[in-house]
Each structure stands twice: as C-alpha cells, then as structure tokens.
C-alpha cells in the first residue's frame, strides 16, 4: 500500500510482478455513486471495482452518464452520493485529480505545440524539466508510429496520427489507471481496427489499467477483460460481462463463435436500453 502510493507520487508505476498476480488487487472501488444535475439523475447507484492491470470497457446508449462517470473518476467532478476507495482507502473524488491519466473524446492537442511538446504536456505540468520530458517522449515515438513527426504541428497530421499523439500524452503521464473516452470514435473503421490492435499491444507492454468508453460493441468486446453495459438515464450498471477470449487477440477473433455469442448477448441488452431511451 505504502509502496504503491510512493510509486504513484513519483509518477511511475513499474509493474514488476506478472499480470496474473496483480489482477484482483483493487485500484479503485466505486460504490453506489449517484450524481444529479438539477432534476436529471445522470448516475444512479453505480458500483464498479477496477482491478490492477484490467482492461474494462463501458458501453451504453447516449446520455447514459458515461461521461459523468469519467469526470468523477478523473477527479473533475464529485458524486452526490456514494463512496470511492482508492487502493481500499476511502477518499474524496477530488483527490483523484492528477491521479488518473485521462484521454478525452477529442484529441485536444494544442495547435501551437509540436507533436513532441503536445505529448509531454502532462508530465511537463507535473514538473518534469522539458529537456528530460522530451528525451522520454522521443524514445516512445516509434512505438506510437510517430517517428520523424516530432517537429510537426497538429494541423499537419491526419486524424489517426493526432489520436496517437493524444494517446502518447496519456501513456507518458504514468498513472495506474488510464481513462479513455471513445478515443477512436472519429476514425474510419479501417484505421480504427488497426488502432485497437495497436492499443492492446501497447497496453500489454506497459501494463496499465484501462477504463475505456465506446459506442461500438465489437470494439468493447475485442479490447476488454470485462464489459460494463450501462442503462439509459438514469445511468446504472445493467450488466457486467467477463470476456475470457484469449490474449493476445488477433483481428479475426471478431468472427469467432465465442465472440459472436458474447456479442449477441450484449446486443440484446443494449437494444433494450436503446429502445428505452428512444421511446422516452
């Protein structure tokens, strides 16, 4: 516990033990979170346990409170009710600010910064000297497919590349938990599936815990250890589905029978929710 906190405060959690062992130790426990905006209840009694090294995807109809959930986990918002435990210690939601690597829907790159300087933004804000931060980022560039582009500006990049810069920024900000909010939502399907496989590689290599929002069922199943299906407003966790498909996952897994079975089950649930939100 203490070693963990120390590691976090240093900004770098080097997972030394094999994943099989770390899995199961809870990083973040959310219990009965409820959040209201005026008359609207965005989240109701949402409980999730996020374990170290896990890849969790969240899927649900629009307006199900996914973004609210993310804002709370990122420490940007506080729930009206419920408890949050960080490494089994009860904390206030605001304490999570700066403890989680957050990647929003849009890449939100700063147009006046180069690829390299955009990537180091988070660690620079943390206090890492620029030169050191740049050196770190330079080493990561090839892995993110950005080698040779370090001096480019965002307006000179394609959508996929911009997203990779944003991801690199998130990875460089070394936190146990990464929050990815529909990072590939704006990409075409070919680029998207390439990015998904690539993300899994990176995730496995860097041993992070990921909470990932998506609208795309295939993506949710393909990436996850666990899929959370959320209900229409008020947002609740309607179903929690473990995905035991073998890793590393290959592109053709989406046509396998197991994959299809899971997809059918999830589709049925989501269909029901979508109808509800459509009718209301």
């Amino acid at each position, binding site marked *: 516990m203490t070693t963990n906190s120390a590691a976090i405060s240093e900004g770098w959690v080097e997972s030394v033990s094999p994943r099989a062992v770390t899995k199961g130790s809870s990083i973040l426990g959310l219990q009965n979170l409820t959040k209201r905006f005026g008359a609207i209840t965005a989240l109701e009694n949402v409980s999730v346990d996020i374990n170290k090294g896990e890849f969790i995807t969240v899927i649900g109809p629009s307006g199900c409170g996914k973004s609210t959930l993310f804002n709370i986990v990122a420490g*940007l918002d506080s729930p009206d009710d419920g408890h949050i435990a960080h490494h089994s210690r009860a904390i206030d939601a605001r304490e999570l600010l700066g403890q989680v690597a*957050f990647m929003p829907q*849009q890449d*939100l790159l700063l*147009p006046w910064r180069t690829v390299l300087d955009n990537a180091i*933004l988070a660690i620079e804000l943390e206090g890492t000297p620029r030169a050191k931060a740049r050196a770190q980022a330079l080493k990561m560039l090839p892995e993110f497919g950005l080698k040779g582009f370090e001096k480019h500006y965002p*307006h000179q990049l394609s959508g996929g590349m911009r997203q990779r810069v944003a991801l690199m920024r998130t990875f460089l900000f070394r936190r146990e938990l990464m929050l990815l909010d529909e990072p590939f939502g704006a990409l075409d399907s070919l680029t998207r599936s390439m990015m998904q496989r690539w993300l899994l590689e990176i995730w496995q290599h860097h041993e992070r815990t990921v909470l990932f929002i998506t609208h795309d069922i295939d993506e949710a199943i393909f990436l996850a250890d666990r899929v959370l299906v959320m209900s229409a407003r008020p947002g609740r966790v309607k179903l929690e589905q473990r995905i035991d498909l073998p890793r590393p996952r290959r592109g053709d897994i989406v046509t396998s029978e197991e994959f299809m079975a899971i997809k059918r089950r999830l589709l049925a649930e989501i269909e029901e929710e979508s109808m509800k939100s459509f009718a209301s």
Partner: protein
Amino acid sequence: MKAWIAPIMRGNSFRLALGVLAMALAWQLSVVLFKVPVHYLPSLPLIAERLSHYPDPFIAGFIRTASEMLIGLAVGTLFGLLSAVIMQRYRMVRHLLLPLFIISQTIPVIAFGAIVVMWFGNSLLAKAVIAFYLTFFTITVNTLAGLDSVDPKQISLLRSFGASNQQLLWRLQLPSALPAFFTGLKLAVATSLSGAVVGEWFGDTTGLGVLLLQSMYNEDTISLWSAILLVALLGSVCFGVVAAIEKRVLFWQHKQDINH
C-alpha cells in the same frame, strides 16, 4: 509571366502596393481631367512639394504622434491584457469593473480636453494617456472573449493532469486567447492613433493632429492632405507590423485557413 514574379504577385504586400499605386493614379487623373479645385483635392505633386519644402514640422509631427501612439498602445495593451486575465479569474472583479469600463468608453474623450491638459499639461504623456484610454478597452474585451472561449474540455484535460491555475493560464488560456487578442490589437492600432491625434488638439505645437487642425482653420488643403497621408502612413505601417507579427505567432491558424 516569369516564374519569379508569380509568388510575389500572390503576396499581400504586393497587392497593397498595386492598390496604392492605382489609387494614386486615379487621384492624379481625376484632379487633372476634371480640374478639381485645389481646396477640394490638391494634386499629388503639390502635396509632395509641400512636404519637401517644409519637411521639418511634418517629420517632427510624425515622430511625435508615432511616439504618443506607441506608448499609449503599449501601456494600453499591457493594461488590457492584465485586466482581462484578472477579470477572467475573478468573476466578482469582472462584475464590478466591466460596467465601469464600458461606461468609460461612452464618454467622448474630446470633451475632456481641458481636464487632460490640466492634469498632464502639454506633455507627450498627456497624449499617450488619451491613446491609452482609447486602447485598453478593445484589448480587454477581445482578450476576455478569447479567454472565455477556451474549450472547457481542454481545461478539464489539463486539470486532470493536475495543472495549477498558473499553468492553466500560461499553457492554455493565454495561447488560446491569442487570435482574439490580435483581433483586438489590430483594432487598437487605429484607436490609439485616433487618441494621439485628438489628444494633440488640446493645445500643442507639434504632431500630425496639430497640423491637421491648423490646416483646417487656415483652409490650407495641401497641408491638410499632407497630414492625412502621413497619418495614413503611420496607421498602415503599424497595422502591417501587427498583422505580420500575428501571422508569425498564429502560424497554426493560417495553415488551417489554407486547409479549409
């Protein structure tokens, strides 16, 4: 067309030069062809002769007005930026001060001639103060709009990285407000020049504003046009410099424009 001319032809400055030349030609032709009386529109050679014959007051006036304007513009820009940042950070200050700022701009400065002379004398400072008075508000309002328009998601992102208020201001808000700030600065060039010229009407001996006033009351159209052209030169040069700086600083904006 020769290959080396083409890129120049596309340049803004070339287009401007061409435009100025065309205007000068139209001016001169209309004066000669329609025999426009001198007291309406003197011919360009007459103006050139006046400027070369008595260069001293015009040169001194140009320098004087330029320095008044630049001091006013510089101080106004600093003050405008600072007040915008403070108003953006502290809602209360904005609620309390912004109405006063707005009211201050509805008061015609020319009505304050006597007070300005009383407080600041005939000094260069007095005119710089008027230029400042006409400048800061444009900067404040535009910068404030720029600071306000920063994408809240962007702020959330930086906050989630644990950014402090200071870091947020320098890394995100100020750079994001730059386009709006430059819009304001370009407007402020004209208003600060206006302030310097009007300021000189309250009892001064040198300056382009003095020359304007003097030639108006002496019904001396040649000097009047000479002074107007010099004011135009001063305004255009300053505007051009600001626009050039803007282009360099906001490189990403122009690139985006081309892409669209």
